[in-house]
């Protein structure tokens, strides 16, 4: 067995930022710092430790974007870093890629670190694609010789061959990104730091990029640190994750546990349900709520979904009906469900009525959805209440295994199917 081969070790990493405007007043703080350092005292501004909570107003102008982070990464491991916006993910990556230095603590590594932070930086519009490949490669730490030996592969991977001797300013934004990713993809550092690059380019290129990422991590056995909001790519690419919150590491473990923890911890605090006051003498919808399989209004594909309604019925209704649509983010309705008084008696007596619809196996494809609800009388009759865009929820597929990763917008829903395969 032997001991683990640790390639990167972060010890007590903290990073302090100053809030507000940098400029006026900093000379005073700088002088104060300098005066303290001359007398061999600690930096007076470092003592003020406040956690980095975006929404509450702190007392000091200094916050800790990262607070005492410790972790180790083994050689060949793919580590995911997840957390909400402002949890400190990007700060950690910036420190790892040496763009900024930590306020305290240190990171020790046994390999070269290269980062894919928002690719395409350092491109010069006036230079041709080919010239930019060399420039960008060199910025990322490759030597001219290395680039020369790979240039054909890079051009081929980017799919910009026809334009390669045209200035980059004439490129479409998609082409620029393709070219940039292509350069970065052929870097060969021991440790690769990746930040949300997969969110670029069209579907075809994304597939290519993810494939390349998988090759890098699985095939070539390189160590990858991967930051993303996309639980889907996190779960398909990584085997271990750390979860950050307000600059603190709150979880470290295998990917599926981490995602569970993250989702549980990341509870949507604001009320997601629809609520309304009863209107006097008029029937209306009092409330709609969606019960998803996971917390935070995240639903796993194929799990049962419950939708509950509360209806205000001030007088007895005849032939009432309730129906709702699940609408995707392009506002197109994907499915329609209904119940009629004629099928199941409802709202025949005044009072508050509760209805619950259970979809035993929700086959909606991954994406964001909302509800549109109709509370109406008999066909051609009165429309009591119509509400739309309520109860947003998200469908994820990350617990479902498939050889190829699920990509967004591939389809609207997935049907159960049986395949018969014979050789003739």
């Amino acid at each position: 067995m032997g001991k683990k081969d640790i390639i990167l070790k972060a010890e007590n990493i903290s990073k302090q930022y100053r809030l507000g405007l940098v400029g006026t007043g900093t000379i005073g703080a700088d002088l104060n710092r300098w005066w303290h350092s001359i007398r061999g005292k600690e930096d007076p501004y470092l003592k003020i430790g406040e956690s980095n909570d975006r929404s509450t107003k702190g007392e000091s102008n200094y916050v800790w974007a990262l607070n005492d982070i410790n972790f180790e990464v083994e050689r060949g491991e793919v580590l995911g870093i997840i957390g909400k916006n402002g949890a400190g993910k990007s700060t950690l990556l910036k420190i790892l890629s040496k763009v900024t230095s930590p306020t305290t603590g240190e990171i020790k590594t046994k390999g070269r670190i290269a980062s894919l932070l928002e690719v395409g930086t350092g491109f010069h519009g006036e230079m041709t694609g080919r010239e930019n490949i060399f420039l960008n490669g060199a910025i990322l730490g490759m030597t001219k010789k290395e680039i020369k030996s790979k240039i054909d592969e890079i051009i081929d991977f980017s799919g910009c061959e026809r334009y390669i001797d045209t200035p980059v300013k004439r490129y479409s934004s998609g082409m620029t990104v393709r070219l940039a990713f292509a350069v970065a993809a052929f870097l060969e550092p021991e440790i690769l730091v990746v930040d949300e690059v997969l969110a670029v380019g069209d579907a075809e290129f994304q597939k290519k990029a993810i494939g390349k990422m998988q090759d890098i991590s699985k095939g070539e056995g390189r160590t990858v640190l991967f930051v993303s909001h996309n639980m889907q790519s996190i779960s398909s690419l990584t085997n271990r994750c750390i979860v950050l919150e307000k600059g603190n590491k709150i979880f470290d473990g295998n990917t599926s546990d981490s995602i569970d923890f993250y989702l549980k911890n990341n509870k949507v605090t604001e009320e997601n349900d629809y609520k309304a006051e009863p209107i006097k003498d008029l029937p209306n919808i009092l409330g709609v709520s969606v019960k998803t399989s996971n917390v935070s209004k995240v639903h796993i594909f194929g799990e049962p979904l419950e939708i509950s309604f509360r209806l205000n019925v001030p007088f007895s209704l005849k032939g009432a009906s309730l129906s709702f649509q699940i609408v995707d983010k392009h506002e197109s309705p994907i499915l329609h469900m209904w119940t009629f008084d004629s099928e199941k008696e409802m709202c025949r007596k005044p009072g508050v009525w509760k209805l619950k619809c259970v979809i035993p196996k929700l086959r909606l494809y991954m994406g964001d959805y909302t509800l549109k609800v109709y509370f109406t009388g008999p066909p051609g009759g009165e429309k009591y209440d119509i509400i739309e865009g309520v109860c947003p929820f998200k469908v994820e597929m990350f617990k479902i295994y498939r050889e190829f990763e699920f990509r967004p917008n591939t389809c609207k829903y997935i049907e159960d199917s049986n395949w018969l395969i014979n050789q003739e």
Partner: protein
Amino acid sequence: MNSTTKQNDWLYTISPRRKFINLNFKEIWRYRDLLLLFVKRDVITLYKQTVLGPLWYLIQPLFTTLTFTLIFNNLANIPTGDGIPSFLFNLAGLSCWNYFSTSFTGTSSTFKSNQGVFGKVYFPRVIAPLSVVISNLVKFGIRLLVFIGFYIYFVFFTGKASLASPNLTLLLLPVLIVLMALLGLGFGMLISSLTTKYRDLTYLVGFGVQLLMYGSAVMYPLSYFKEKLPEYSWLVEYNPMTVFIELFRYMTLGVGRFSISYFLYAAGISIICFLLGLIVFNRTEKNFIDTV
């Protein structure tokens, strides 16, 4: 098995501690291709999509020199020394001055103009100002060729520059070029580091450089200034650029002042300036992205 010993075998460490001067020559050497590519980018892209292209490198100094000659010598009658065409005199001064000033202004905006790249990728930051200075060296080289061309023309074809006498101090030229670069680089790095926090300096540099030109004996000989305005002459005399420009004219044209003590003084200033710039630059580069 031997993992305990291997555990301590770290390649490098990212830490907040800053050494006083943290120049990793090995690392800079590893990034030498980047340095060259930056220089190439600077030199090539400047005149892309222009009709005259690199010819602009010739046209610019020529027209400036012509204007200077017209205004300062023909109109204001500033003497340039016997037997020395004022055109050649101005070309010499302007070439040196431009070399310094473009190096200085170029490096002084290092952090601001490279913000995007610096914020995303790591490479030794010092590569950026170095590349500015080297690409200016290339431009200076072109100007030097222009200068030599006119020199030959004046000496051999018109006979106007009969008294121009290049001398042995010409051997100091490489040292002079390096010193001017160090001065511009040092000043530039200092300013660029400070501008990340205090933007006021950007404005100062803008007009400061222009004013400084008048105090650097570019369009007049130092001796003439001393003769006319003796009470202010120390301002010009102790300006290291004056020393360098005078020396350049002395070594090529035989006019101007060359004194070992002043030369050593200016060289000292340049080196101190460079070291100071390097220290401040080093302190800034690690965290500038947080304050810029």
